[in-house]
């Protein structure tokens, strides 16, 4: 486990709102099935979601999409409020949630401006036919525990270990390393990589787009949370930047 700073670049211009990332995440990470009732109670669990905004009036309307997941903030508001240190920042730039340490105060979710932390209000259940498709590399979270996007840390760990075993360097953009959402995205709107490596794809995108008149922005930047997710806004003339909230 070398010094890393995992992060993501999301090109909103490329997002078609197809929800493939949501489905991929759901099945990679053993997330319980959300039913209508869960949404109505605002207790659905979606580590990544695609928010939809309408612009204009019918018939001249446009749909805008923006995928939102845990921003793995450098100055994460969720971390200092945890009374038991179940959530902390590790040396790879991940905002970690240690499920077995969590006692379920939900302070972290209250303090998160992005609404990307989810509480398990129920014991997770799957239909009998689906129990064999659970991912053995991911802990099933029981009732009373907070959970959220991990950047698919299980995939990072495994690829790191296998590259060490085989004596090869980690490959930037390796599909085995990238989170499920990134792999599933048909338009490559999501890119995952190591910001500590100036040669990585995410670093180069960020550098290029943070220049004058570049497209880079971050969600709720003014809060000083220093997210590890960089968004690239729409290129369309006259489009409002699809900022959150």
């Amino acid at each position, binding site marked *: 486990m070398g010094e890393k700073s995992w992060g993501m670049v999301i090109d909103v211009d490329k997002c078609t709102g197809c929800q493939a990332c949501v489905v991929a995440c759901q099945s990679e990470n053993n997330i319980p099935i959300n039913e209508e009732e869960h949404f109505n109670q605002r207790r659905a669990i979606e580590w990544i979601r695609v928010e939809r905004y309408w612009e204009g009036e019918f018939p001249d309307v446009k749909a805008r999409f923006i995928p939102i997941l845990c921003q793995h903030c450098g100055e994460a508001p969720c971390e200092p409020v945890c009374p038991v240190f179940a959530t902390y920042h590790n*040396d790879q730039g991940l905002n*970690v949630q*240690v499920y077995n340490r969590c006692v379920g105060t939900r302070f972290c979710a209250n303090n998160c401006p992005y609404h990307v932390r989810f509480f398990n209000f129920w014991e997770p259940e799957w239909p009998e036919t689906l129990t064999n498709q659970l991912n053995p590399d991911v*802990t099933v979270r029981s009732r009373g525990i907070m959970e959220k996007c991990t950047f698919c840390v*299980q995939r990072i760990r495994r690829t790191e*270990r296998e590259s060490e*075993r085989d004596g090869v360097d980690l490959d930037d953009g390796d599909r085995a390393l990238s989170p499920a959402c990134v792999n599933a995205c048909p338009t490559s709107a999501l890119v995952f990589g190591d910001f500590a490596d100036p040669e990585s794809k995410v670093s180069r995108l960020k550098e290029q787009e943070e220049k004058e008149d570049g497209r880079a922005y971050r969600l709720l930047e003014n809060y000083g949370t220093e997210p590890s997710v960089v968004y690239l806004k729409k290129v369309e003339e006259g489009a409002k930047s699809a900022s959150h909230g």
Partner: protein
Amino acid sequence: MAGLISLVGVAVLAGTVLVVTFVISAWFGRPIVFGYDDGPAQPIAFPHTVHAGVGPLLNADGSPRLDEEGQPQRVNVMSGLGLDCTFCHRMAATEAAATIPSVGLCMSCHVTVGDGNDEIEKLRQAADTGTPIDWTRVHRVPDHVHFVHEAHIRFFTERDGVPASQVCSTCHGEVAAMTTVRQDRSLKMSDCVDCHRDNGAPTDCTTCHY
């Protein structure tokens, strides 16, 4: 009255001592009061002593098997067996799980070896009907912990310059001398993390919990 009070006092004291002993022993992750048990019974009494032990052929209880003249008996084909651990636990050096061998691997010998032995008949029956054997797990970390054999075997084989099969005893004890496999080391979090600290291995929570 005084007698009653002192009786209650003694009872309370005894209770406290019992509870404290239990808590302390549980704290160190090793139930010293009761000790580790002998390991669960298995659907087929598979003895590591016979297969993995080195030297002359052993009885299932570990004592040397004697021939009619009272001499230590050797099997013609493979004296003392002494099979390498990774011959059966094939993935130990390459993957997360060491894995238990399939019935097919056992049968590569037991098609011919062991006529008349009840346990081996069970094995052959399983092979005939194509049913896997439902071995009982001995070592198991909880679901929220991810253990990986490969990284450990790699580290210790490289550091000590020994083959993989000599690393196993660090955590599993001398399995080759066990008739039924039992746990030998607590393998609780403190046990894992202590060794990780001593060897400069990662101790970040996401090493083991995710």
